[in-house]
């Protein structure tokens, strides 16, 4: 009962945060709304007994990445977004289509499939997100993928330098 209650509290918080991010006209406010989304999602993970993932979510997304976002926004010295003009019908059509696709997906999950799948039991969830377990899985099952993620990060770093460095030689 308490779990369901908490789920709805955090779900509403994250959806409100996402909407706020889309609507707010100042980039800084949008970034702060985004922090709320990240925190609410982290709390959702906690209610699912995935403590490690919840904490990492706060550290990495709400902490590091959003702070970087804010730094970049402030360095760019952006003006507020321009005010909304007339109704752009292409955007309206796009919005309707987007909602239609979302409705289809939700229908798949709820109507056709009956109900939302059972959450794993608390013990299972704790075992699956336990830090030693994750560490072993990363270095055995996913050892190769981990290396390729390293290549991905290296390539992204080099790419950023190639594209952004002043007078690249």
């Amino acid at each position, binding site marked *: 009962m308490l779990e369901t209650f908490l789920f709805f509290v955090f779900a509403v918080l994250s959806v409100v945060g996402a909407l706020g991010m889309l609507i707010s006209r100042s980039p800084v406010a949008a970034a702060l709304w985004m922090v709320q989304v990240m925190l609410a999602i982290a709390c959702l993970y906690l209610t699912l007994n995935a403590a490690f993932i919840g904490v990492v979510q706060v550290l990495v997304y709400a902490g590091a990445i959003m702070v970087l976002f804010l730094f970049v926004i402030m360095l760019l010295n952006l003006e507020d977004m321009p005010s909304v003009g007339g109704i752009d019908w292409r955007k309206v059509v796009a919005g309707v289509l987007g909602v239609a696709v979302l409705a289809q997906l939700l229908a798949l999950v709820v109507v056709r499939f009956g109900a939302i799948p059972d959450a794993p039991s608390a013990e299972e969830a704790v075992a699956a997100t336990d830090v030693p377990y994750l560490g072993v899985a990363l270095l055995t099952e996913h050892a190769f*993928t981990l290396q390729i993620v390293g*290549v991905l990060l290296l*390539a992204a770093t*080099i790419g950023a330098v*190639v594209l952004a460095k002043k007078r690249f030689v």
Partner: protein
Amino acid sequence: MYDFLLADTARVLPILVVAAVGIAVILLDAFRNDSPSIPWLAGAGLVAAFVLEGFKLYDPQVAFFGQVYSGGAAAFANMVVLLGALGSVVLSVPYLKRIGHNYGEVHALILFATVGMMTLASAGSLITLFVGLETMSVCLYVLTGLVREEKGANESALKYFLLGAFSTGFFLYGIALLYGATGTMLFSEMVEGLAVTERTGIFVGGVALLLIGFLFKVSAVPFHMWTPDVYQGAPTTLTGFMSTASKAAAFAALVVVLARALPVDLVAGEVQITLSVVAAVTMVVGNVIALAQTNVKRMLAYSSIAHAGYILAGLAAGTGEGYGGALFYLLAYTVMNVGAFGVLAALEWDKEQGAIQDIESLAGSGYRQPILGVTMGVFLFALTGFPPLAGFIGKYLVFAAAVDAGLTWLAVVGVLASVVSAYYYLRILVVMWMKPETDAPEAARQPFALATSTTVVLSLCALLLLILGVMPGGVIEAAQSYFDAGAIVAGR
């Protein structure tokens, strides 16, 4: 617990070799900026990986608890990717020197992109698939925007990045739904997982989203909008790289998903309908719009959309012949398109990566540069699908598979679409050989010396197309052996 690591590392050795050489290139570049030995090092690494993969062509195995397939079909696809990368590295050196962007980093990024592509083509689970796809894409975004002084290049890189990120979202949602439906990330356990949970609805939704992600990467209609702009703005030889190797890798991964991860009745049912409709629309739209193009690079971009349609026809068949035919087609397509973009790169003069060069500027270039003229002829005839070149065999294989699977209408559409394509492919040849040189603008008529490496690569590509067209037997047999009914079960 860690005993398996040594044996499994040996199975993915070619990928690790390419990654290590990429890091070596970056280190070399750090100490000797843009050293001329960098392309040699990159090329040597690619050749080494190619040879290593060659040993595993008939030795399919799994590594890392099924996360990665090694050998067999994965080796075949990886060899195609490596061939495309090798051709592009060699052709890029004189081209990038000419446009003043011959950085060591370019070669490192090509190598890292190749690592991503090979991972993608060898993926045995949704995680590996995604990591491979992203590694490839990130490198390609950067390579597209390499000439960052140019507005056109920046526009195409940004477009590619934003749309690519958007399609990645679809791909990830698909992965999440598939995992929710089956409880596993491994392709080999998906069918069993689905049988236990019976969450068919979610599974189908996941497959649909995953297909959108794939169809975007192979630029099938209606997810093709980015292709012409991106291909036009990117450096020409690198356009050749991304239009061939990345497509080969994405198609190879799609084949593996269709053959190994999805239940048979779904592949023969909804998926077949979807893929055949997409294939038909892609072939028609790609070829018809290509007719109206005056910029050769843009024309080849639409032609590459059309070729994705032909390959999808083979996948729609859903049989071992179809999958094998698609793999063979990818090989032929890689060789001919790397060559065609190589020729265009050599004939480029507008200092905007060929973005404003129209077809008339090629007038009479066949006589000025006979090697370019003749090899371009071979590539264009192969792209059209004339015998005895490899393009013909590829088309024959995918369409024959479609007919065998009861999709005769699809094969008819495909053949009619290729007839249309003959017009715009051969128009390039007409301009190159039959129009007087005076039709071309002054800047296009400056004489230039062709680099020896370019001559060698283009001649080898043409020769390979001829050999594959005349004696394709062994290659076809290998490609089709990977996905016949017995091999799929054994490969698990």
